[in-house]
Each structure stands twice: as structure tokens, then as C-alpha cells.
């Protein structure tokens, strides 16, 4: 089990907090909360060690399309990058509602 942390420059304020997902096998939960300041913080607690580079790629890619002043917490139980992106997109969709 390991914890990964990343930061990204952002600018758009976000009005609400959002939670999606469940920490089931092959799945994850995502918590998104508004923060002040221009840095988005991402914390990932994952049950599978050694995939830091994969996570970074996935989250980098997410932040190329998403701009929001958020703190994101991910609790992961072995999800594939595809599932991670799905959950992130699901969360963003709820953010917009």
C-alpha cells in the first residue's frame, strides 16, 4: 500500500464537493473538494505498490483537460487506468451539475 501525491497549477474556482465510487476490488473512490489558491492537490492511497509512473501519467492526462481549484483524494483498490479515468470523469460530471 502506498500514498502518492501530485500538484498541478489551476485557476478556476469550484463551487461544490463531490464523491463517487467505492473501494471495491478493481475499483476506487474519488473525493473532490474546493480549495483556495492556484494549486490543485492530488493524494492517492493505493493498495498496489510500484505504479507511481502509471498514476502520474493518468493524473497528468486528467489535468490537461480539467482546470479547477480542487483537492482530490483517491482511495484505490487495484483499478486499471481506464477505470480511474472513468471515475474521475464521473466526478467531474457531478461537479458541473
Amino acid at each position: 500500500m502506498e500514498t502518492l501525491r501530485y500538484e498541478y497549477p489551476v485557476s478556476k474556482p469550484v463551487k461544490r464537493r463531490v464523491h463517487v465510487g467505492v473501494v471495491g476490488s478493481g475499483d476506487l473512490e474519488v473525493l473532490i473538494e474546493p480549495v483556495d489558491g492556484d494549486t490543485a492537490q492530488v493524494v492517492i492511497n493505493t493498495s498496489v505498490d510500484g505504479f507511481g509512473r502509471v498514476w502520474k501519467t493518468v493524473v497528468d492526462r486528467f489535468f490537461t483537460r480539467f482546470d479547477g481549484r480542487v483537492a482530490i483524494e483517491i482511495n484505490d483498490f487495484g483499478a486499471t487506468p481506464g477505470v480511474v479515468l472513468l471515475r474521475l470523469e464521473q466526478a467531474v460530471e457531478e461537479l458541473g451539475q
Partner: protein
Amino acid sequence: MNAQTDWKGFLARRSFIELDARERTIALLDAGSFREIVGPFDRLKSPWLPMQGIVAQADDGVVIARGTIDGEPAVVAAIESAYQGGSMGEVSGAKIAGALELALRDNENGIRTRAVLLLETGGVRLQEANLGLAAIAEIHAAIVALRRHVPVVGVIGGMVGCFGGMSLAAALCSYLIVTREARLGMNGPEVIEQEAGIEEIDSSDRALIWSLIGGEQRTRLGMVDALVEDDATQIAKQVRTTFALGIPKAYRCEALDTYLTRIGEVDTSKQLTGVQLATLWGNKGDSK
């Protein structure tokens, strides 16, 4: 009933089983009244799982929702079976026990507050063993105390069912609502097979398992109060109908004479099928 009504009903059906714990609580509460407390953003996680390399879910697998049912204040506690099999750890157990204790406090202070338990659980979380078990004992105590004021309604939807120490919680409830897909038993079939051998029970024989402890079988024996379709709207309706019954005149777990007779008259030299047992016990009157 005409064919068109059938189709409409069928297409409108929304599976309760496919809903996660949060969605189930929303489905049961009056529309718009849902308010989650001690939710994921409170981050009251298991202190014990990360010590064992297991990622903690932010709500520890239990949703506590406040709201109304038929306009009356209510609390719904729903277990998320997708997380650690819905097992009871320190925090998840405390959320349920604590919610019931607060409902009790309100009722004692003249604020009638209903309680619904959505029981989808394998029982104690082994990684938290004694704290899970202790929390379950506290849930039992809280149900017994609260149900004197207001019915405590349990719902078992499936597919995990309700096992372990929480099966006792189900049996302590004022009323139990189940689907056909539900199972209610103390020990999981795998554990029985492991402890007693495959001749005792073949845990891979799904038809056998449901014939012993499935929702329909439990209904035949009078061990549950209502059998409903796996449909969120129908289950919500059944919960309301059930509350309208008020506090039951007698509790199934207090049917001492009935069960003395029932257990006493069984021939234990052979195994009975579910149907055989229902025939043997079925005409003895209501066990509740």
C-alpha cells in the same frame, strides 16, 4: 391485469440490488429529504486497515442518512457490500450503533424517529475482529432498546445477504423485508463447508443454498415479514406499509414456545429440505 400494464411495470422497474448503499438510502427516504451525516468527507476511516496494507474507504463502508419517511423523521443506515464484503469494523459498526442510539435519544425526548437498517454484510471484519464483534453487540443492544419506541425495520436485498453477527441484528428487528435474492444465515456456506465438510453443505450449489436460507425459504418459515420484488419503488413502499403497522404485538425472537415446539419436533437423524421443513412447521401458526 393487461399486457400493456405488465410491460410498463417491467420497464419501469429499477433494481434495488444494483443500487449502491447511498443510492439505496435515497430510494427509501422521502424524495428530497436525504442528508448524509458522517459521510466520506468526514474521513472517519478505519484506524486498523491501513496497518495491514488495506486501503481505507472514507466512510468505512456504511452510509448514515437522515431524512423523512412519510413525513416523519428517520435515519437509514446502509451497509456498502462492495467494500470489504460489507463487513463490520470499528467505525462502520459504531456508525450504525451510534445512529440507533441517537434515534433512541430522540424518541425518549418525544421526537419520534424511525430507523431502517439496510443489511448487506458478511458479518465481522476479521481484520478488526474484536472491535467489529463488540460493535455488533452494541448494535444489538441499540436495536432492542430503540424498538420499544418505534419499529426498527431491516431490509435485506442481496446479493451479499446478511450473515454473521449481523444476522442476529436482523432477527432482533421489529420487521424484516427481504427479496428472493436475499439470504439470511449465521454462517456463510463456505465457512460451513470448510468446518463441517462438503457432505454437510456444498457451498457451490447455489440452488441448495437459496433453498435453505434464501428469501423465499425464510418467508415460508415465517422468519421474515415481507417478500418483495427487487424493485426500489416497491421496497420503498413496503417500508412505509411496514411502519404503518406500528410496534409489533410480539417479537419473533421472543416466540419461545413456538420454537421450543418447532425445534423439538424435528427428526435430527436426517437432513430436511427447505420445503420439507416448511411443511413440517408450516401449519403451526404464525411464528411471530
